């Protein structure tokens, strides 16, 4: 990927918003990749956790908002547990999801009607409530 970088791009408003919402210091990451190595759902992600952080460090927020990755994170916090720099990738994912959901940029990830039909009688309530809150806002 070819990027044209400038200080305005790298320090854009949206990047600041991600840092503020997630409470994470993006520049603390030195790209060791332990978050991606430890992530239990990394195989399904189109952009792996450490790459998402790198894109954000370079001011490239849009591709992260459009990624599948942010909807696949299960908030297990193994990334944070393994990070030598104290960065919580799960919190960055929550922030990116919040930006999409609060602006209503896309459709809902989980169809509540479909969940009602298939899961409610079967799965624990905590799973249904958790998924709807995390993925539908």
């Amino acid at each position, binding site marked *: 990927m070819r990027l044209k970088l400038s200080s305005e791009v790298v320090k854009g408003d949206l990047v600041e918003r991600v840092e503020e919402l997630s409470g994470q210091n993006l520049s603390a990451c030195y790209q060791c990749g332990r978050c991606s190595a430890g992530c239990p759902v990394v195989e399904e992600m189109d952009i792996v956790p450490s790459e998402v952080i790198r894109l954000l460090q370079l001011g490239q927020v849009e591709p992260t908002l459009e990624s599948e990755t942010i909807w696949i994170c299960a908030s*297990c*916090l193994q990334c944070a547990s393994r990070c030598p720099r104290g960065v919580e990738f799960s919190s960055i994912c929550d922030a990116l999801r919040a930006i999409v959901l609060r602006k209503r940029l896309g459709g809902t990830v989980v169809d509540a009607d479909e969940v009602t039909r298939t899961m409610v009688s079967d799965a624990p309530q905590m799973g249904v409530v*958790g998924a709807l809150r995390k993925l539908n806002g």
Partner: protein
Amino acid sequence: MKIPYYPGCTLHERALDFDKASRECARALDIELEELDIWTCCGAVFPLTTDSVMDILAGVRNLAYAARLGDKVVTLCSFCYNVLKRTNKVMREDPEKREKANLFLKADTEAREKIESYLKEDYVGQVDVLHYIEMLRDVVGFDKIRERVKVDLSGLKVAPYYGCMLLRPKNEMEFDDHEQPTIFEDFLEAIGCEVVDFPMKTECCGGFQVVREEDTAVACSQNVVNSAARRDADIIITTCPLCRYNLDVLQKQMEKNVSGFRKLPVVYFTQLLGIALGIDEEYLDFSDNYVDPRPLLAEKSLV
């Protein structure tokens, strides 16, 4: 001794087996779990976005209900424990959110009508949030449990599965070592089981992602079940109804994915405690399990 108890929605509906066994075990150990007279869902997931006060209110309200009954609240579900413990830390350490949350709570006329004594003072984190296993260790004591054991479980190889929510984030949960926890091993040793250590004991089961895409949770849970099976475990224990669902019910899919897949029963830790304490079978309901543990338990002469 009475201790305030917050069951949460899942133990009130889908995981009645867990609730029933845990209450009865507490009784056998001279503790009465006193269910909060009023409680709501805790919200199930703690918000990881920093600006969210609304998303912690359900947790704060439940903690404020608990504060009327005592200085502790015990819970069993890993999600409830995670949400209540993290919310409590916010109320203790973040003055801005504490003030906002209390303003919202005081505006809750419905709760005030239901409970006259509701929130006379601000909620500032007066209650300690305890997991049931912490109650067993710190209030009852594992030594006392060891003395009360009536049934010999020494032939049963048990793999303790922790999952995510009890342990992470480590600085806030302060439950046990986040990579090598041992509290469930100590518990299993006290009730006389053979403990099976396995590398995936703190990995994620897929959690709520099972609702979005079942295959995601199948892949995660399969790693956990296989890891315990490779270490020759007979059975897995857990304290989370969602982990129980993913690890147990999804074995239906794992059987299709893996030839020669060895099924492993997954039970709640208090169900095993119940067997050890010789609690009547009517309190230990295994009918909801996909992989039925009863043949294994019968083979070991435990039911």
